[in-house]
């Protein structure tokens, strides 16, 4: 058997968030702030969240990997670090082939702009050339299906329903051929028809020899698209293996 080609290698990755403005009760008055500065106690407003604690794994080309775990277990944070959007603490590394792209429902586009201009902006932000953007804009809008109920692509995105804007975001990110595609709950939005279409697109992207990471709470969509699953709990990998085996373990754990 030929050696499999790794695309993502996480080597003892720790990720720490700094959260500013997490005020605890009693820290809201000017006097309290002053007292804090005078006594030299650490600011209660800045908290550190140790979201991912020493994660290591190797992902190979052609794999689709599901990431599961309860809320707040560090799945989205890990995806962001893989995409190079969050720094990994010293001592650990995440290595990647090419530039992984994150596709999440909270990917911020500009709400005051029309859907079409957001498509152009999103494509440029992914590093496409203007000529490439021009040829792809229409197919992205068609794929998202936002024009099925009339001409929505020329309306500002703030007028879209949450399902529509999630569909548009997915369509933008899926327009590019990615070495590594990281999908964060994106498939859980949209109607059944769009979900089928997007699952087909994820399969196509995989066939183009990329690697796909999928974070989802929908056990069905992970079972359908991924053959390998990593289970993350409190920032630590609990299990890493075939989807069916990990899923059974996970379901047992969640039933408790």
């Amino acid at each position, binding site marked *: 058997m030929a*050696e*499999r*080609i*790794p*695309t*993502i*290698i*996480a*080597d*003892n990755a720790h990720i*720490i*968030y*700094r*959260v*500013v403005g997490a005020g605890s009760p009693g820290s809201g008055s000017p006097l309290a702030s002053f007292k804090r500065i005078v006594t030299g106690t650490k600011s209660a407003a800045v908290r550190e969240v140790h979201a991912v*604690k*020493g*994660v*290591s*794994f*190797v992902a190979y080309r052609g794999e689709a990997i599901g990431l599961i775990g309860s809320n707040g277990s560090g799945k989205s944070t890990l995806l*962001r*670090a*893989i*995409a*190079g*959007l*969050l*720094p*990994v603490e010293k001592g650990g*590394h*995440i*290595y*990647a*082939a090419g*530039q992984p*792209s*994150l596709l*999440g429902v*909270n*990917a*911020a586009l*500009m*709400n*005051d*702009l029309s859907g079409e*201009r957001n498509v*152009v*902006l*999103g494509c*440029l*932000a*992914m*590093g496409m*050339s*203007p000529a490439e953007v021009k040829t792809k804009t229409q197919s992205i809008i068609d794929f998202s299906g936002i024009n099925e109920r009339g001409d929505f692509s020329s309306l*500002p995105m703030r007028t879209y329903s949450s399902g529509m804007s999630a569909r548009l975001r997915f369509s933008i990110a899926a327009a590019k051929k990615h070495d590594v595609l990281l999908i964060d709950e994106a498939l859980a939005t949209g109607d059944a028809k769009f979900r089928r279409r997007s699952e087909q697109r994820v399969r196509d992207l995989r066939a183009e020899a990329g690697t796909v990471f999928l974070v989802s709470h929908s056990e069905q969509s992970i079972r359908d698209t991924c053959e390998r699953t990593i289970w993350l709990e409190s920032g*630590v*990998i609990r299990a*890493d293996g075939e989807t069916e085996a990990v899923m059974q373990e996970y379901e047992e754990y969640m039933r408790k």
Partner: protein
Amino acid sequence: MSQTTVVRTETGESLEQLARRHGLASAGALPSLRQYAQQIWAYRHFITSYANARVTSALGTTHLGMLWQVLTPLFNAAVYYVIFGVILNTKAGVGNFIAYLCCGVFIYNFTSTVVSAGVQGITSNLGLIRALNFPRAALPISIVLVEVRNLVASMAVLLTIVLVTGEPITYQWLYVIPALFLQTLFNAGLAMFGARLGSKVIDIKNLVPFLMRIWMYTSAVLYPVQRFTDHLHGWKLELLEANPLLVYIELIRHALLENVQLAGSPRRLWVEGLVWAVVVFSVGFVFFWRGEKGYGRG
């Protein structure tokens, strides 16, 4: 705490060796300065369309829309005209005081708006930063581009005011272009410096209004620079006259107005303007680049 899962690679080498053998790059590695500049150049279309998008989203929700780009400097000039021209009837020993004043106000505003938007350039775009991968310097640079667009509109207003108040058109008007170019470089450096500083020390944004007000009063915006020479001597005066904003304002006044007394000889002002632009731009760029990989942390 460190429950490290041991991952065995197929060939028994360490993860780092495996990554190196397959040419995988560490996600946290800083690009070289040269590579970084190339990345920014590759993203130039994103930068310009993002700048346009910011203008559209700021003005697109108003009824008058893009007209505000011209109306804002016009109202600005009108306010100063009413106060200094009509109510106080200030002459301050300057022949054409209204035009003199407007040069100062518009040039000051260019830097002032860049600085106040720049220090929030990272913090107000965290969503974008945590979602997409692009050279982060695109954000402060696009802030500068937005203000350049506004500047073009306010320059049109300024030239009209200068003409209406009776100044002749001379070839010296052309000096406006290199002067504004130098100020733009200077502002870009400030925006990048401020963006990184503002992302680390978030409280800075509350200090910016005060800093900018001090900077305004020391830049001879509302009164001629000769006010300072009456009170200050030696190094204090030297320091004040080296003030980059004062230099850029004086360069514009020199280009557009006849019979103005400048803070220094034109040659000296040009040299100072050039040095400030190159130094601040380089320092700002390098400072911003050093923090490139950490902006997503918040």
